[in-house]
C-alpha cells in the first residue's frame, strides 16, 4: 500500500514529468539537427557508402599487439604502465583469433554512412540519454529521500519504529520510478531515432565485424564477447539502466545521510565533479591501475559509452569494464544507502 502511494507521488510529480519531457525534447532537437546535417541518399551514392555488405574477414591475422603499441607510442608510456597495456591486449588476442575462426554469425563489413549512423546511435545518442536518465534518477532519489522533511511531515512519520522503515520502501519506489522514467526517455528517443534514420543493418550480424572501425579510431570494433547488433543494443540499454539505478543509489544515500537537502545536493555535485575532472586530468597516468580503477566511475562510463563491451582504449586495463564498474560502484553506494538508512533509524529528529 505504502509502496503504491509513494510510487504514485513520484510518477505523478509535475516536476519530474516535465523534466522527463525536457529530456525527450532535447534528444528530439539533437536528432533533428543531425538529420538536417546528414547527407542526402543521393549524395551518399558513392561506392564506400553502398549499404550492400561485403564479406570481410577483418580479424584474420589481426594483431592486438599493434593496438597496444600504437597506444604506448601515442601516450609515450614506459615501464609498468606500458606492460599493463600490453598485457590487456595480449588477453584480447585469443578473442580476435576466436572471432576470425567463428563462422556461425556473418562477418559483414560496412563503412561510410552506416558507420556514421552507428556513431550517432552508440556514440552520441546513447551517451546523451544514459546521462539524462542518470540525472533523472538522481533527482528522483533526492526528492523521494527528502520528501517528508520537505513537506514537514518528518516528525509524524518518524515518530514510530514502523514509520522509520518507510525510508526502505522509498528506496524500492525510487528504483522503480527511476526505471519507469528512464524507459520513457529511452523508449521515446529510440522511437524518434528509428523514425528519422534508416538503420538498415542485419540485426543478427556480429557487431564486432559489422562496422569497420571503433568509434573515432582506426582500429576494428572488437567486443570481448560475441554479440549481435541487436544483443549489443540491448546490452548497452541494460548498462544505461544500470547507471540510472546507480545514480538513484547515490542520490538516495546523500538524501538519507545528510540532514540538509542542500548538503545532499552539494555532496552529489562535488562527487560527480571529482569523478569527471580527475578522470580527464593527467594526474593519474594512462596505463596505471589507479587510472583504470578511477575510470570505472559513472562519469567516465558515460563519457565513453561508445566503448562499452570493447577494449576500452588504453585507459582501461580490464575486460568488461562497464559491468565491473557498474557492479563495484553499485555495491559501494548500496552500502552507503544501507549505512545512511541505519543512521536515520537512530537519528534524533528535531
Amino acid at each position: 500500500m505504502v509502496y503504491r502511494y509513494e510510487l504514485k507521488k513520484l510518477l505523478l510529480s509535475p516536476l519530474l514529468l516535465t523534466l522527463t519531457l525536457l529530456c525527450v525534447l532535447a534528444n528530439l532537437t539533437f536528432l533533428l539537427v543531425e538529420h538536417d546535417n546528414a547527407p542526402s541518399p543521393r549524395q551518399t551514392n558513392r561506392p564506400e557508402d553502398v549499404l550492400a555488405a561485403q564479406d570481410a574477414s577483418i580479424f584474420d591475422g589481426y594483431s592486438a599487439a599493434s593496438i597496444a603499441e600504437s597506444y604506448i607510442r601515442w601516450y609515450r608510456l614506459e615501464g609498468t604502465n606500458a606492460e599493463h597495456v600490453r598485457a590487456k591486449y595480449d588477453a584480447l588476442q585469443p578473442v580476435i583469433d576466436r572471432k576470425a575462426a567463428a563462422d556461425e554469425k556473418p562477418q559483414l563489413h560496412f563503412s561510410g554512412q552506416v558507420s556514421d549512423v552507428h556513431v550517432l546511435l552508440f556514440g552520441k545518442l546513447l551517451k546523451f540519454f544514459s546521462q539524462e536518465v542518470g540525472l533523472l534518477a538522481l533527482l528522483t532519489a533526492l526528492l523521494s529521500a527528502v520528501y517528508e522533511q520537505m513537506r514537514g511531515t518528518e516528525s509524524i512519520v518518524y515518530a514510530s519504529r514502523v514509520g522509520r522503515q518507510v525510508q526502505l520502501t522509498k528506496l524500492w519506489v525510487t528504483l522503480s520510478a527511476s526505471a519507469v522514467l528512464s524507459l520513457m526517455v529511452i523508449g521515446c528517443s529510440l522511437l524518434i531515432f528509428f523514425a528519422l534514420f534508416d538503420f538498415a543493418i542485419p540485426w543478427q550480424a556480429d557487431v564486432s565485424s559489422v562496422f569497420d572501425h571503433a568509434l573515432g579510431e582506426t582500429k576494428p570494433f572488437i567486443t570481448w564477447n560475441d554479440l549481435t547488433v541487436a544483443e549489443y543494443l540491448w546490452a548497452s540499454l541494460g548498462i544505461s539502466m544500470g547507471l540510472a539505478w546507480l545514480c538513484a543509489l547515490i542520490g538516495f544515500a546523500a538524501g538519507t545521510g545528510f540532514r540538509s537537502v542542500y548538503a545532499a545536493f552539494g555532496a552529489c555535485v562535488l562527487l560527480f565533479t571529482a569523478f569527471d575532472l580527475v578522470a580527464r586530468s593527467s594526474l593519474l597516468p594512462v596505463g596505471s591501475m589507479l587510472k583504470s580503477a578511477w575510470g570505472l566511475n559513472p562519469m567516465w562510463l558515460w563519457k565513453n559509452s561508445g566503448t562499452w563491451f570493447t577494449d576500452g582504449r588504453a585507459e582501461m586495463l580490464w575486460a568488461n569494464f562497464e559491468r565491473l564498474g557498474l557492479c563495484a560502484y553499485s555495491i559501494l553506494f548500496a552500502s552507503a544507502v544501507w549505512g545512511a538508512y541505519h543512521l536515520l533509524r537512530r537519528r534524533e529528529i528535531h
Partner: protein
Amino acid sequence: MHLLRHELKKIWNWRVLALLAVLAALVWSLPLRESAAGYDSMRTHGGYGSYQRELFQRYGNTLEPEEWADYDVPGKIAAVQAETDALIAKSELFAKQGIHNYAQYLAFVDRDTSGLDDAELERFMKITQDMRDQLSLRYDGQTLDEFYASPQMRMMALKALASAYGNPDDEYRLQSFIQRDERPVVVQAAREILSRRNSSLIRVDLVESASMYAATVGVFSLVATLLLVTLPLSTDRTRQVHLMQYSSRTGRRILRIQGAAMLISSLIVSILSIALGAIPLLAEGAAEYRHASIQQCFSFFDMGLYDLTFGQYAMILCAMIMLLTVGTAAFVFILTRFSANLMTLLIKIVPLGLALSGIAVLTIYQAFSSNNLLFSAVLRGRIVMPEPLLCAIIAGAGLLGAWWVTCREKHVDVG
C-alpha cells in the same frame, strides 16, 4: 541598506563557501593548470621554444613578409641540421643502422612498419626512442631548459614556427575562403586580412586555448553562483518567513532587496572567478600578446574574424562571463519565487544550470573564430559577433523577468 547587508551576509554562508573552495581547487588543479601551462611558449618552453619571443622582440605584434625573410628560418634550420649531422656522425647507435646524417635519420624513423612482426616492431621502437634521446641530449636529471636547448627540440620548434608563419604573403588560403565560403562574415574577414598584407604574430592556438580557459572559468562562475545564491531566499520561502515580512509595507520590499543581493553576489562571484583565473595566465605570460590582433587566418579551417587586440578580446570574454553569471542569478531568483521549497527549486535549477553552462561553452569557446558553434553551425556566419549578443540577451531577459517578479510582488495575494 541595512537589510541588503544582512541579505548579503545570508548568501555568503561559510559552508557554501567551503564547498566552492573545494570545487575551485578541483577545477584549478585539474583542467585549468594544464591549460595555463601552455602559455609558456612565449618564453623558453612550448611549441615554438624561445623563437617566437625573439620574433616579438624584433618585429613587434605583426610580421611583414620582409621581416619573416629577414628572420631566415630556413637558415636557422640548416644550422641546427648541421649541428645534428655532426652529432649523428659521432654516434655508434646511428652508425649501426647505417645512418650518417639527419636526412637518413628522418627516412629511418618514417619507414613503413606494417610488415614488421611484434618483436621486430618492439626492437624498432626501442632504437628510435634511443635515437631521439641522443638527439635531445637526454641524461638523468636533465633540466627543461637543457631539453629545449637540444638540437632535436630546436629543430621541432623551428619547423612548427615555419608551418605557422612560413608564408605570410601566401594568399591561397584567404582566396579559398573568399571564393568558396558561404558565410558572409568570414568572407569579409578574409578580405580584411588579405588587404592588410601581414600576419598577426600571435600563437596559432591562442584564441582556442584562451577561450577554452575562459569557458571553464565561465562554467565555474555559473555553478558557483547557482550554489551560492539559491539557499537563503529558498529557505525563507520554505519556512514561510515571507508571510511575516509581507505583513508590513516595508516588508513587501524584501523580495526586491533579496533579488538585489543575489545579483550583487553573482557579480562578485564572476569578478572573483575571473580575477583568480587570470592570475596564473598573467604569470605564464599571456599578457605579452595584449597588443597583438586576433584577426588572423590560422589554417584552412580556422580564422580569427575581427580586428581586436588580444587584450580587448580577453576583456570581452570577461564581460560575457559576467553577463551570463548575472543572468543565471536573475533566473534563479525568478525560479525561487515560484518554488515552494528547496527540493523543487533544485529540480528546476539543475536543468537551468546545465542549459546555461551549455550556452556558456557554446558562446565563449572559440568566440570570434570562424569555428564557433553558435556563429557557424547555428547562425551560418550571417551575424557579426553573435556570441556576446546572446550573453547580453540572456542577462537582459533574466533581469527583465526579475524586475517583473518584484513589481508583481507588490500587489500579489500571498495568502
